[in-house]
């Protein structure tokens, strides 16, 4: 049936090993890239097979155990894999988008040093991510969870000779560790608390079945879910641990697309989906999740408004969109959250790859003209739509999708989330306001990006201007496929209120229903409201988005002097936004520097003085004694004989006069 499920993560692992061990011998870029891509495509084909098999199956959850791993006392951990609709969706997204990005990388990374290293890491990432989504217990999931973090570190630091890149990699790793700590503590507490009810397990199916034993809204379930959510904030870049993601843009652009937009950062969303029964039991945690998600969506959108680096805008947009997903999970709209995860994977991967195509072209042009200008700064772009028509078109489609314009994929998922935020039994109107505000800003900064990059006069240095041209097919093909998916991907999940009129069911929700519907029914999580209300809210949010687009049009096409005037009149505000609200500086002052100081104290104050002092002191003391005592070693045989004789006398005296 599904007994070859373990092959899905195995293919990329094999690709990783081949490229990693033999890559520097192979040298041929086409073969190396081919192996990496083939491994991903194999996973994708197998994922498709199981997806369609699952569609026709009546039983929707399957688990296979390959081997036993840890058996200690009550603890039994298997190399277990599972497939259910949630995993199937994730598998398709990860292996599908992953395959396209591997293909794209063949062209994008052409001529880079360490080509085989790149593909080896990328395959290793795919392996870890697929383990994460297929693992049937929390420990196997944790392998993937840590594995993707490691690969993220390796790939952000791909250009390790650049200080900024290795710093960003370290930052990502350390921040992720904080989250992973939460994940582990959550897992331990969960294991222990379920164990106290006689259920010693880490298996998700068992956890799902027995979670209710912990009690609705009990302290322990709140604690467990909060710990898990801390893990999510690290991996999925939410407040307060989001700061690593924008810096992660130091990695190659396809990596940003795959890891820091489409897949790895959605691991937290997936995890909440996987443990939905647990989170549903903790309304307080769900509230925290929703608020953090909503605030992150809004907050990072504000930062995106003023950035000039094309990838940084997209990075903050990613943080913001992830915020939407958590908002959805927090208000109980699990299906909508996963749906947005999927559509976001399409359009954000397309946007990142599009920006990569632009950067590639700019870089090439500068290289040709022997210039060292910043190839990622949008102020050096403009008017590229004629030079790069395919990139422009796919980019525009994805931008419209992310802005939430009706008919494109982002609209369906985003409005579903906003509707739930407003009308869910666990939602609140304030959450809707945050989401809608973020939607307006999203539309503004994304169209600002498009206008600055593709419209108007070309501001590139005159020498390099004419060397900008469209990327090769290996780069544009993934763009076209992803652009197409960004266009139509939403139609699998048309909201009921619209689908009802044209008699199209919400395929996506129906498919995922076996995973989420029982939880939602059991704990009375649902969105109540009339069709006019839903349409009204939809209209408002679309209106806000259109306003954002119009504003971007006015400011960056119609009247290009306006942004400068705006900046001049709101200097302080603009500077705060441009400097990312000084969050990094605040963290440095509040956390990083005190930690460093504490570390220095432990090093210089405690280790050097106390620990080394004790060790060296013992040595010095022995030295001192031996210095005094060595003079007894006179070298005269007499003295030795005398001390021996005296010793004998003393011992005899002791026994005689005792």
């Amino acid at each position, binding site marked *: 049936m599904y007994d070859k499920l373990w092959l899905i993560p195995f293919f990329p692992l094999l690709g990783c090993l081949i490229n990693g061990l033999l890559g520097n011998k192979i040298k041929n870029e086409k073969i190396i890239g081919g192996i990496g891509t083939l491994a991903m495509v194999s996973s994708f084909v197998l994922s498709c097979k199981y997806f369609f098999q699952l569609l026709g199956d009546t039983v929707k959850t399957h688990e296979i155990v390959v081997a036993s791993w840890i058996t200690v006392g009550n603890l039994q951990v298997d190399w277990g894999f599972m497939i259910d609709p949630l995993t199937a969706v994730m598998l398709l997204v990860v292996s599908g988008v992953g395959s396209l990005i591997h293909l794209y990388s063949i062209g994008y990374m052409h001529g880079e040093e360490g080509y085989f290293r790149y593909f080896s890491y990328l395959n290793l990432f795919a392996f870890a991510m697929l383990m994460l989504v297929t693992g049937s217990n929390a420990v196997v999931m944790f392998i993937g969870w840590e594995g993707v973090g490691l690969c993220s570190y390796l790939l952000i630091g791909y250009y390790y000779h650049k200080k900024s890149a290795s710093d960003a990699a370290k930052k990502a790793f350390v921040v992720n560790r904080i989250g992973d700590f939460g994940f582990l503590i959550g897992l331990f507490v969960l294991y222990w608390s379920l164990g106290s009810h006689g259920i010693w397990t880490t298996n998700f199916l068992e956890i799902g079945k027995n979670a209710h034993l912990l009690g609705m809204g009990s302290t322990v379930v709140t604690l467990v879910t909060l710990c898990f959510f801390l893990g999510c904030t690290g991996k999925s870049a939410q407040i307060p641990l989001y700061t690593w993601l924008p810096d992660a843009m130091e990695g190659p652009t396809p990596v940003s697309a795959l890891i820091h937009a489409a897949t790895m950062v959605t691991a937290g969303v997936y995890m909440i989906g996987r443990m939905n029964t647990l989170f549903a039991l903790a309304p307080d945690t769900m509230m925290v999740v929703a608020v953090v998600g909503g605030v992150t969506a809004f907050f990072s959108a504000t930062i995106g408004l003023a950035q000039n680096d094309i990838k940084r805008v997209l990075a903050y947009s990613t943080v913001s969109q992830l915020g939407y997903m958590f908002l959805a999970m927090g208000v109980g709209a699990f299906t909508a959250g996963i749906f947005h995860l999927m559509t976001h994977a399409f359009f954000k991967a397309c946007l990142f790859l599009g920006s990569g195509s632009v950067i590639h072209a700019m870089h090439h042009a500068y290289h040709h003209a022997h210039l060292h200008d910043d190839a990622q700064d949008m102020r050096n772009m403009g008017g590229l739509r004629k030079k790069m028509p395919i990139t422009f078109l796919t980019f525009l489609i994805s931008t419209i999708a992310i802005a939430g314009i009706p008919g494109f994929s982002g609209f369906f998922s985003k409005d579903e989330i906003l509707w739930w935020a407003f009308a869910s039994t666990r939602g609140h109107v304030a959450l809707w306001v945050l989401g809608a505000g973020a939607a307006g800003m999203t539309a503004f900064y994304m169209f600002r990006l498009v206008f600055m990059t593709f419209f108007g006069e070309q501001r590139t240095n005159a020498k390099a201007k004419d060397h900008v041209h469209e990327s090769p097919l290996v780069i544009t093909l993934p763009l076209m496929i992803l652009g197409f998916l960004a266009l139509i991907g939403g139609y699998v999940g048309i909201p009921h209120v619209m689908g009802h009129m044209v008699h199209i069911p919400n395929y996506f929700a129906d498919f995922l229903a076996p995973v989420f519907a029982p939880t939602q029914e059991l704990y009375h999580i649902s969105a109540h409201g009339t069709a006019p209300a839903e349409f009204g809210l939809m209209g408002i949010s679309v209106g806000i988005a259109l306003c954002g687009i119009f504003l971007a049009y006015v400011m960056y096409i119609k009247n290009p002097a306006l942004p400068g005037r705006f900046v001049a009149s709101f200097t302080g505000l603009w500077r705060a936004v441009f400097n990312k609200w000084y969050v990094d500086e605040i963290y440095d002052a509040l956390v990083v520097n005190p930690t460093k100081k504490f570390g220095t104290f432990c090093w210089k104050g405690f280790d050097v003085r106390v620990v080394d002092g004790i060790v060296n002191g013992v040595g010095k003391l022995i030295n001192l004694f031996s210095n005094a005592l*060595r*003079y007894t*070693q*006179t*070298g*005269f*045989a*007499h003295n030795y*004989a*005398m001390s021996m*004789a005296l010793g004998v006398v003393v011992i005899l005296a002791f026994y005689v006069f005792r």
Partner: protein
Amino acid sequence: MFTVTVHHYLVVSAILFSLGTIGVLTRRNAIVVFMCIELMLNGVNLSFIALSHFLGNMDGQVFVFFVMTVAAAEAAVGLALMIAFFKHKESIDVEDFNLLKW
């Protein structure tokens, strides 16, 4: 009539041993030191013989043979060493052999 008991032998043995010890500790000439060591050994031998006779056990007398064998070997090795020392230092004064020290 004055009878000689085992105590008398032991006293003579102790006197011989002590004389040897004092010689070892005070004399400087290596050959004299060496002779004093022989004196100590013979003091011990005497007590072995006396006690062996007194207890009617032959073990002590067997032991004496071992001691004498060792003493003979010691004399050979010791005199050879002393000749080597003398070649080196033109002296067999033990005060001159003090290189092995702090």
